[in-house]
Structures are given as C-alpha cells and as structure tokens.
C-alpha cells in the first residue's frame, strides 16, 4: 500500500506514534513527529511511496520539539536519528526541509555500499545523466524540469553508485527548489505538487516538489551511467553543451563525494570506472526550453 492509501489523519496518527515506515528506494525509514504540518507534507510529498510493513528499518528518524522553556517562546524542531540529535534545532516552521536534510544526512553517512555523490540523476531509456553542481548552479531547477518532461527522477541530491556493479540506484524523493526557481517550475510544470514554501532557511526560501508517480513506481530500476553534465545557469544564456575534461570531471565528482574518502582506493577505482564510461560535459543554459532540447538530443543519440 502507498502512503496515499492512508487517510491524512491516519498518516498523522502513525507519525505521532512513530509507526509510519516508508520505503524510499533501497532504504526503509521510520518517521516520528508530533507536528501535524510535517505529517501533512509527508503525506502529500511521499504519497506514492510504499508504506513498509517490516521490522527491518534503516533509519529511525524523528522531528521533535527540543526540551526546555524555549519551545514555548520560539518553537523549534530537532532532527533525531536513533534518538540522537546530530544538528542544532531549527525554527519549527522549517521542520519539513529539516526532515529532508536529515534523511540526506542519514543516507550519506551510513549507506556505504554505494559511492554517494552530491548530484542529481535523471534517466531515459536506461541511461542516466549525473548532474553535479554547487548551490546556484541550476541543478535542481534543471532536474525538476527534466523529470516533468519525460526523464525519470533517480535523485535530486544524492547519486547512489553501486560499488559492486557501477549501476545507479534511485531514491525518487522530492526535489528541493530554492528562491526564484520555485516560481520557474510552478510556471513550467503547473500540475506538479508543491509543498508550502519555507521561508528564511539557510538556503533562502525552499519548496519541495513531489516526485512524479512513474519515477516512484520504477524506483527499483537501476540505470547505467552515460553522461556527467555539470550545469551552470546564466540568465539569458544560449544553451551550450561543451566537452569537459574527464580528469577535471573526476576531481569535481571526488570533491562532491560524501563518502569518497571512506571508500579509499575502492572509491577511486569506482570513480575511474564511472568517468571512463561517461561522456563528460559542461552545460551552460539560460532557458529551460533550450536545455530540454539539448537533453532530448542527448537521449536520442544526436549528441555525444
């Protein structure tokens, strides 16, 4: 059963009791929170994800008010993993982004059967494009537009490269948009389901976009890495896909590897295999329509 198969009230009750477990790609997360607004957004954004009926839980995650009188004066939320708080509390109004960041942290910190790179991943016809990018590069905006234009979402933030066979695994979690890109995607994909906007976070205003149903239902399908494309958004720029040095791309991916150093030589070898098999590009774009045409040409084999 998917989460949307539960009523919003039942999802809220299960989250309050800590009995709501969701399958999120290769992982199972149990979520607990007394905050009804968090339960509501989880129910909306993860509605197509399966409810897990298992005792094998990868992450016991919770959002709770910190103790002390401050919680009455200025409500806050604390992210907890296995009952421990790895971060400082944030304003309660930022609970939902905090949950997303916390889940990212859980995966990046513990899922070492993967080489985990900070990158979006989209797929078409079994071939995946890895989009590494610093904040402001337009990575998530491009990712959101692609997955509402025929590409499948594997992940907006975490590329999961299987250390055993080099395949990319999917998470299909919500796409996190910031500031101006929220309105851009609102206009581009008017049918997309958005969370409420969360203002004044460390990254500005954030809104989460529900992953397309098809991406969630195909989350167990892996994809073969085909391209590493480093996006750079420049307002008004003409789309320009230029070959990038594989060595420079390698270094960028290593820099963006959450657990690259943990894997040591095996991580280096995995990254060598990845970069060797992929066409590497730098992609400058200023308009989503142009960008999508370039990606469609890539998928059609009209470009390298």
């Amino acid at each position: 059963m998917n989460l949307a198969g539960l009523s919003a009230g039942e999802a809220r009750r299960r989250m309050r009791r800590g009995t709501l477990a969701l399958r999120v790609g290769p992982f199972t997360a149990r979520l607990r929170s007394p905050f009804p607004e968090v339960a509501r957004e989880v129910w909306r954004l993860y509605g197509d994800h399966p409810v897990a009926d298992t005792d094998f839980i990868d992450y016991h995650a919770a959002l709770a008010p910190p103790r002390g009188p401050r919680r009455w004066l200025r409500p806050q939320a604390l992210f907890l993993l296995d009952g421990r708080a790895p971060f400082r509390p944030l304003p309660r109004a930022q609970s939902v982004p905090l949950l997303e960041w916390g889940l990212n942290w859980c995966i990046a910190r513990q899922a070492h059967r993967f080489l985990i790179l900070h990158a979006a991943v989209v797929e078409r016809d079994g071939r995946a494009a890895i989009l590494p990018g610093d904040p402001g590069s337009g990575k998530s905006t491009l990712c959101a537009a692609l997955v509402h234009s025929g590409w499948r979402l594997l992940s907006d933030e975490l590329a999961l490269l299987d250390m055993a066979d080099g395949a990319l695994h999917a998470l299909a979690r919500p796409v996190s948009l910031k500031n101006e890109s929220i309105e851009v995607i609102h206009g581009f994909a008017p049918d997309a389901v958005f969370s409420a906007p969360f203002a004044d976070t460390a990254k500005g205003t954030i809104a989460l976009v529900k992953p397309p149903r098809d991406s969630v239902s195909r989350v167990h399908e892996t994809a073969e890495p085909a391209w590493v494309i480093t996006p750079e958004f420049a307002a008004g720029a003409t789309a320009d896909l230029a070959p990038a040095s594989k060595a420079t791309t390698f270094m960028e991916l290593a820099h963006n590897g959450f657990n690259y150093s943990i894997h040591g030589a095996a991580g280096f070898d995995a990254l060598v295999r990845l970069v060797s098999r992929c066409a590497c590009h730098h992609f400058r774009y200023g308009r989503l329509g142009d960008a999508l045409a370039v990606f469609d040409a890539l998928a059609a084999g009209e470009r390298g």
Partner: protein
Amino acid sequence: MANPRESAWRVVRPSRLRVQRFADEVVLYDDRSGDTHLLDDLAGRVLERLLGASARYGELTDLAAGEDSARRGARILTVLERLHRLGVIKPLRK
C-alpha cells in the same frame, strides 16, 4: 632537500598509489594520505616514468620535449618538487 638535479628519484611505495590517465591529464590517489590529486600531462609522464623505474633529473628532461628547450629543465624541476612535496617521490640515497 638534496640537490634535485643530482639525485635519482623514485616513487615512495608505489603499491599505495592509484594512477589513471585521462587524455592529457592524470588523476592520482594516495592511499596513505587519502588525497586525490590532478596532475598535468608532464607531471603525469614524470610519475609514470618513475613508477617504471627510478631515474635521475637528466634522464627525465626528455619528457618535456614539447617545451621550449630553455625551460625544460625548470619544468622538470618544478614537477619533481611538487611530487616530492606531495610525498609521492623521494630522492634515492647515494
């Protein structure tokens, strides 16, 4: 550091290194430090030569054949100093 022009150079424990060439650049992983480095073509060729066998400065200058002849020596010295600073190579004791 001993005079780099007079020393023979060798790679420190080659088994701890991973080296991969991509066209005219090389990436290098050092298992001892956990560091990954990007080397240009010349530094990559010097390292690849030294992985094969130790060599003296004078035996390496031919690797800079594409450089201005007046600058070849200086370029090789710069590369040797950089690789030495990274802990990847060291001079052989006489």
